[in-house]
């Protein structure tokens, strides 16, 4: 674009890069920001001194040498995106490790600004950094920032402006490698220049870039070389270059440098250089600066309390979600109900045919608003709470605590984080699987996410448990009901682990699982940021997908309930058709039909069941658990039916929103179908088993 400067933002995960990005762009845009990482490049605009800037937030990575998807996106953008400047954001409390990425980026491009972020935290930990000296040692502008201090960000903007307009020209001082490696790099580089006829007049490629290409050619990293080929017009496959590389390797091998340890040598050089620089600019006044974090960690990951505390945290979140969403849900119901009245009046006023107004209002409108009323409040409560835990830095600890169980199932502890999100909403849990690096493990996590019941299924589980388990045993009734619900959840999790294991031993065999995870420092979350991100990026995102499915589904439900043959509605006919099969599972035809046409949202399964039993032609809302219980019992529900319904609630096909998300994430119809079949098959088999065992014993 003419007259617009492009600025890339790079950095390790957990360095507050997104906060810097949002402050620069004024939070004008929100792209899916899932735990821990930005997967695609997000962009945002800003104006500094009347000039337009386009900021590109690239995924947070530790390095741009590896092969994970995010690192490739990051690397390709820095290498071939030609930004006018690249800001490397680093965490001032662990500068040394962060410099690794900086030096790797310095190898590729020159217009780099170092942003030393989280200075307030460094201050608290009594770490002092001499920014001026750091700038001298690196040869690039260095800006210290603290997200809360606007002035520091203003400073950063000024430097960005100056670098882009050429007022400041960074001259990065690169890492110098072993003498022999340097010689080989130079030789390869000269040959590339010769072959590509890059004389001084038509030197399109900066020397720095050619140096980097030479290192990669020596390293022989196929993926990067492929990227270089497809993004530049450089001729690097020339026989002469190949010959030179071979010759250089012979020389290097004489000095005990081999293909196997080449990368080690390169990275070691970078890290030693980083150590050296840090020792000159950082001073630690308090050697035990991590002691507060370690004390918290000692409790949160302790043998005795680690897992109970985790369960407690989750339990509190669910409790707040379920209890807290009652009131706003009812308000929404009333609000939409009021509009519905007006719509009906309007329909009469304009003489809309009755069937049409019924279909539009009782079919589409009612189902749609129903889904919004029951989904919006719990999500608007659950996601901020969950994001709070996330920003606190607690989620990686969950993965750390649970890894062993997942390792036994040949997966990674990070899957637990996605399952925790699944409790809120399976569609979000599925999207959250992006935090898992290995494609195989990510797919397993996606396919098994539905085994944890989401917000939409919880209230149904609780109602059924209250009516049939608690109702039957008096006394500690509510305790028993709670225990049953917990039992069903644990059962779902164990089954998810079992299925994960079976998948990794059969259709998803492959690389052994790995788990190397950084446990970031605990941070005080910023409430404003949490609200914005959880409401916009998650709640509305899911709601939009849900609405897309709810409207057509509402139409289908209405048609089924209102079109009849010989006095029986299509719904009844369908239910009768499924009845023999459902009976085998200890359910009845109506229940099974309700699950099937309740596919847009699990929340409407119970209303559909009630609608069927009462022979009504609109969804039935019922506040009173006792009254619901009476209707269910009159229609033949026993404790066995209740148990099977609970099992099937946990184990059936994902809702439409989740299926859509699975299709988006896997990009494959095949895996979407598999994700539909696995839990459904489990549910059918287990319900049948329970039914037969019950009949056999009693």
């Amino acid at each position: 674009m003419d007259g617009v400067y492009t600025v890339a933002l790079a950095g390790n995960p957990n360095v507050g890069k997104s906060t810097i990005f949002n402050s620069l762009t004024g939070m004008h845009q929100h792209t899916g920001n899932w735990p821990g990482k930005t997967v695609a490049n997000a962009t945002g605009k800003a104006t500094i001194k009347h000039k337009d800037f386009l900021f590109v937030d690239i995924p947070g990575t530790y390095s741009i040498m590896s092969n994970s998807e995010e690192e490739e996106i990051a690397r390709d953008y820095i290498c071939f995106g030609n930004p006018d400047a690249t800001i490397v954001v680093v965490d001032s409390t662990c500068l040394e490790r962060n410099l690794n990425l900086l030096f790797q980026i310095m190898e590729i491009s020159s217009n780099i600004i170092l942003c030393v972020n989280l200075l307030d935290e460094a201050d608290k930990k009594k770490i002092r950094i001499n920014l001026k000296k750091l700038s001298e040692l690196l040869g690039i502008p260095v800006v210290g920032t603290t997200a809360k201090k606007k002035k520091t960000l203003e400073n950063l903007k000024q430097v960005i402006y100056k670098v882009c307009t050429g007022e400041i020209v960074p001259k990065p001082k690169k890492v110098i490698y072993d003498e022999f490696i340097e010689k080989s790099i130079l030789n390869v580089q000269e040959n590339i220049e010769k072959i590509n006829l890059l004389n001084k007049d038509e030197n399109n490629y900066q020397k720095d870039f050619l140096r980097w290409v030479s290192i990669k050619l020596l390293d022989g990293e196929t993926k990067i070389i492929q990227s270089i080929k497809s993004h530049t017009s450089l001729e690097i496959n020339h026989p002469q270059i190949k010959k030179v590389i071979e010759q250089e390797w012979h020389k290097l091998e004489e000095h005990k440098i081999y293909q196997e340890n080449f990368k080690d040598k390169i990275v070691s050089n970078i890290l030693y250089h980083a150590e050296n620089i840090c020792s000159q600019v950082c001073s630690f006044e308090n050697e035990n600066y991590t002691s507060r974090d370690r004390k918290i960690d000692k409790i949160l990951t302790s043998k005795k309390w680690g897992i109970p505390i985790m369960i407690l945290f989750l339990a509190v979140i669910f409790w707040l979600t379920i209890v807290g969403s009652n009131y706003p849900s009812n308000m929404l119901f009333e609000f939409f109900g009021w509009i519905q009245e007006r719509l009906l009046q309007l329909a009469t006023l304009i003489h809309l045919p009755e069937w049409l107004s019924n279909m539009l209002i009782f079919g589409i409108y009612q189902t749609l608003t129903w889904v919004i009323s029951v989904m919006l409040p719990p999500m608007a409560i659950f996601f901020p709470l969950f994001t709070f835990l996330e920003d606190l830095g607690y989620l990686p600890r969950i993965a750390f605590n649970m890894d062993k169980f997942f390792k036994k199932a040949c997966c990674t502890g990070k899957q637990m984080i996605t399952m925790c999100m699944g409790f809120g909403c399976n569609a979000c849990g599925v999207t959250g699987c992006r935090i898992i690096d290995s494609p195989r493990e990510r797919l397993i996590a996606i396919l098994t996410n539905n085994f944890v019941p989401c917000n939409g299924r919880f209230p149904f589980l609780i109602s059924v448990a209250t009516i049939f388990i608690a109702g039957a045993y008096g006394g500690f009734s509510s305790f028993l009901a709670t225990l049953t619900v917990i039992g069903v959840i644990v059962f779902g999790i164990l089954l998810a682990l079992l299925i994960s294991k079976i998948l990794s031993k059969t259709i998803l065999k492959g690389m052994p699982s790995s788990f190397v995870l950084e446990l970031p420092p605990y941070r005080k979350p910023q409430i404003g940021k949490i609200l914005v991100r959880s409401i916009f990026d998650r709640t509305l995102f899911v709601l939009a997908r849900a609405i897309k499915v709810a409207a057509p589904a509402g139409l289908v439900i209405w048609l089924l309930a209102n079109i009849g043959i010989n006095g029986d509605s299509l719904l009844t006919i369908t239910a009768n058709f499924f009845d023999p099969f459902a009976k085998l599972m200890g359910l009845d035809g109506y229940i099974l039909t309700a699950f099937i046409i309740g596919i847009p949202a699990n929340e409407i399964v119970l209303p559909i069941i009630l609608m069927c039993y009462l022979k009504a032609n609109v969804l039935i809302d019922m506040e009173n658990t006792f009254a619901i219980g009476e209707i269910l019992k009159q229609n033949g529900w026993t404790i066995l039916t209740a148990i099977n319904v609970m099992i099937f609630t946990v184990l059936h096909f994902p809702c439409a929103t989740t299926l859509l998300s699975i299709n988006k994430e896997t990009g494959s119809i095949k895996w979407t179908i598999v994700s539909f079949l696995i839990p459904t098959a489990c549910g059918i088999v287990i319900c049948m088993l329970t039914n037969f065992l019950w009949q056999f014993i009693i």
Partner: protein
Amino acid sequence: MNLHELKLQEKANIVNIQCSENIKRRLLDLGLIKGTKIVPVLISPSGDPKAFEVRGTLIAIREEDTKQIEIEI
């Protein structure tokens, strides 16, 4: 001596990393190379993985991988 034998709070230096290429690469990215100081500071409730302090950060590594990391005290 290998990393899994190191007791909590004991300081050591890495001598050699013999993990599979994939893991080795990840460790390299996180700053674990020959000569790096490493201190185990946390154990997961089930005993595995452990978390280590490296260059001012906290890194969790599984036991099967720490067995492949040679250290000296």
